[in-house]
C-alpha cells in the first residue's frame, strides 16, 4: 500500500477516535430525574438529561452546516455571517501584510547589500523585534484614532520582522561567485539587484513571507478581540459573551482552515522560486 494511502488511513482513524471520544464525553447520561417536560425544557438539557455543557460533535457539525449554508447574512452589528467576519479579517491581514512586504523587502535589500546600514539598523531591529505586536495597540489607537486601522497597523508591525530579517539574510548570503559573475559582466547595481540577488535570495525571502503570514493570522484574532466591531476575532469573543460554545468551536476550526490555506499559498510560491543546485 502506498505510504500516502496508509497515512490517510491513520489520519482518518485518529479523527474517528477523536470524534468518538468527544461524542462519548459530551453526550447526556439519560434523564437525571423525572420531571415535567415543560420544566425540563426550562432548566435545559444539562440539568435534565445530565448532558455536558460542552457541545458534542453533532452540534458543532450542525452549526458549521448552518454557517456554510448562509455565510454572508447581515442582521445588524452583532449578528453577521461567518463569511463576512472572515472577509474583514482577511482584508485587514492582507492590507497590513502587503504594507509590510512593501517596507521589509526594500529595507531588507538595503541591509543585506550595505554592511554600514546593516550595522546602523541592527540595534533598532533587535529592540523592536521582540515587542509583542499587541503592545503597540494602545499607541496605535491613540495616534491613528481608528480601531480598524489600528489592527491593520498591528498586523503590519508583526509581519515586518521575519520578512525583514530573512530578506537581509538572503541578500547578504548570495554566493560570492554569482556576484563575481555579475561584476565581470559589468552589470549595474539595479540590474544586479533584480537579476542576480533577487532570484538568488527569493527562496529565503519567501520563507520569511511565509513565517510572517502565519504570525499575522495569529495576531489578527487577538487584535480583533481587543478592538471589536468586526472580524473573526471579534466573532469569537462575541460568541463567548453569548456563551455559544458551538460557535466558538466553529470559529476555531475556521481560523485553522484559513490559516492553513494562507500558509499553503506561500508554500506553493516558495516552491516556484526555489531552484535546484
Amino acid at each position, binding site marked *: 500500500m502506498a505510504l500516502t494511502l496508509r497515512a490517510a488511513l491513520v489520519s482518518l482513524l485518529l479523527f474517528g477516535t477523536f470524534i468518538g471520544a468527544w461524542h462519548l464525553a459530551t453526550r447526556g447520561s439519560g434523564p437525571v430525574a423525572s420531571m415535567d417536560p415543560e420544566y425540563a425544557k426550562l432548566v435545559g438539557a444539562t440539568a435534565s438529561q445530565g448532558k455536558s455543557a460542552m457541545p458534542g460533535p453533532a452540534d458543532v457539525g450542525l452549526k458549521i452546516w448552518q454557517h456554510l449554508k448562509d455565510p454572508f447574512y447581515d442582521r445588524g452589528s452583532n449578528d453577521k455571517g461567518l463569511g463576512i467576519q472572515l472577509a474583514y479579517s482577511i482584508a485587514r491581514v492582507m492590507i497590513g501584510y502587503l504594507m509590510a512586504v512593501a517596507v521589509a523587502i526594500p529595507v531588507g535589500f538595503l541591509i543585506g547589500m550595505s554592511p554600514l546600514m546593516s550595522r546602523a539598523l541592527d540595534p533598532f531591529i533587535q529592540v523592536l523585534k521582540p515587542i509583542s505586536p499587541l503592545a503597540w495597540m494602545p499607541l496605535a489607537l491613540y495616534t491613528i484614532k481608528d480601531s480598524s486601522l489600528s489592527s491593520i497597523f498591528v498586523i503590519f508591525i508583526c509581519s515586518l520582522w521575519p520578512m525583514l530579517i530573512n530578506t537581509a539574510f538572503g541578500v547578504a548570503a548570495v554566493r560570492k561567485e*554569482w556576484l563575481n559573475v555579475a*561584476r565581470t559582466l559589468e*552589470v549595474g547595481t539595479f540590474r544586479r539587484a533584480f537579476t542576480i540577488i533577487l532570484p538568488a535570495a527569493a527562496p529565503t525571502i519567501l520563507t520569511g513571507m511565509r513565517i510572517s503570514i502565519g504570525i499575522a493570522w495569529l495576531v489578527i484574532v487577538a487584535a480583533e478581540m481587543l478592538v471589536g466591531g468586526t472580524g473573526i476575532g471579534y466573532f469569537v469573543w462575541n460568541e463567548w459573551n453569548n456563551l455559544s460554545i458551538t460557535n466558538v468551536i466553529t470559529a476555531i476550526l475556521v481560523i485553522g482552515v484559513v490559516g492553513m490555506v494562507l500558509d499553503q499559498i506561500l508554500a506553493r510560491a516558495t516552491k516556484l522560486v526555489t531552484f535546484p543546485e
Partner: protein
Amino acid sequence: MDVEVKPRHDVRMTDKFISIEGVSKRFPSPGGGSTTVFEDLWLSMARGEFVCIIGHSGCGKTTVLNILAGLDAPSDGAVIVDNQAIEGPSLDRAVIFQSHALLPWLTVMGNVAYAVGSKWRFMHRGDLNRHAQKFIDLVGLTGAEHKRPAELSGGMKQRVGIARALSIEPKIMLMDEPFSALDALTRGTLQDEVRRICLETGQTVFMITHDVDEAIYLADRVVLMTNGPNAVLAEVVENPLPKERERNDVHRHPLYYGVRNHIIDFLVSRSKNFAEEMMGANYDRRHVPVVRPAAPSATSSVSSISPLAEKDAVRGLRSPRDNIAPAAGEAGADRIRRRADR
C-alpha cells in the same frame, strides 16, 4: 653563461598586451602586521598567447587571476592591459570559474544570453538568442539550451561556463582551474575544444592549472610560481612543442619529457627552496628567467646545484642522450596513452 638566462623582457618587448607590473598582495595578519601572499610580480603576455601558471595551493595563483580579472585589487603595483591600467572588472576580460558559477535559476540559454545581454545592452531578444545559440553550438551543447544547470553533468556545466565567457567576445580569457573538477575523459575533450576555440579565435588566455600535462598540451609558456607566503614567479618555461600539437602524440615529442620533468622537479623540490636557490644568483624579479627545457636530463632534478649550472643542464648544453631517464618517462607516457584511449 649569463646569455643563457635571457630576460623575457628582451624577447617580447614588442608586444606587451598584458603586463603585470610589480604586483603585490598583502593581507593584515591577526596579530598585527601583514602577511605577504606574493611580492613584486612582473610578467607580460603577448596577444594571442596561451599562458598557464602552475604552483602549489596557497601560493596566490587565484589572487593573481582575480587581480587580472579586476575582482581583487593589488596592494601594490598595477596591471596594464592593452596600454591601459585596469580598474576593476571588464567585459574585455572573461573569467571561467573553477566552480563554473552558473546561475542555477536560468537555463543554459538564459545563462549565456545573460552575458550577451550584459555586453550588448540594447540588442533585440531575437538577435541576443541567436548570438547566444552560436556559442552554445560552439561548445557542443546544441539541444540542451533549455536545461537548467542542475540537470547538466559537470562537463556540460563547464561547457556552459566556456560558452558564456566566449559569448561576450573578450580580449582575454582568464581560467581558474577550469577542468579540475572533471573526470579525465571529459577533461581531455574539453581541453581539445578550448584549444581549438582559442586558436580559432586568437584568444589571449591566462590559465591556472595543477595538471602539468594539461599545461604542456595547452600553453605556449608555463609560469612557475614558488610556494607562498612571499611567493615569486620563479621561471617562465617556454614550451618547446610546436604550436600544432595532437593530444594523442604530444607525449611522443622528443622534448615532451624534458619540459614535463623540469616542471615536476620544480613542483617537487625547487618550489619550496627557491629562495635559497636564488641566493647569490642574480635573480631579477622584473626579468623572470626564461627557460626552454631540452630532452630529459638526470641533473635537472638536483636542486642543490647552482641555478645557473642547472639551467645549463636543462637547456641541453650537455648532450641529452647521456642522461635520459626512461623509467619515469615510460610510465608517464603509459598514463597519458591510457587516458587518450579511454
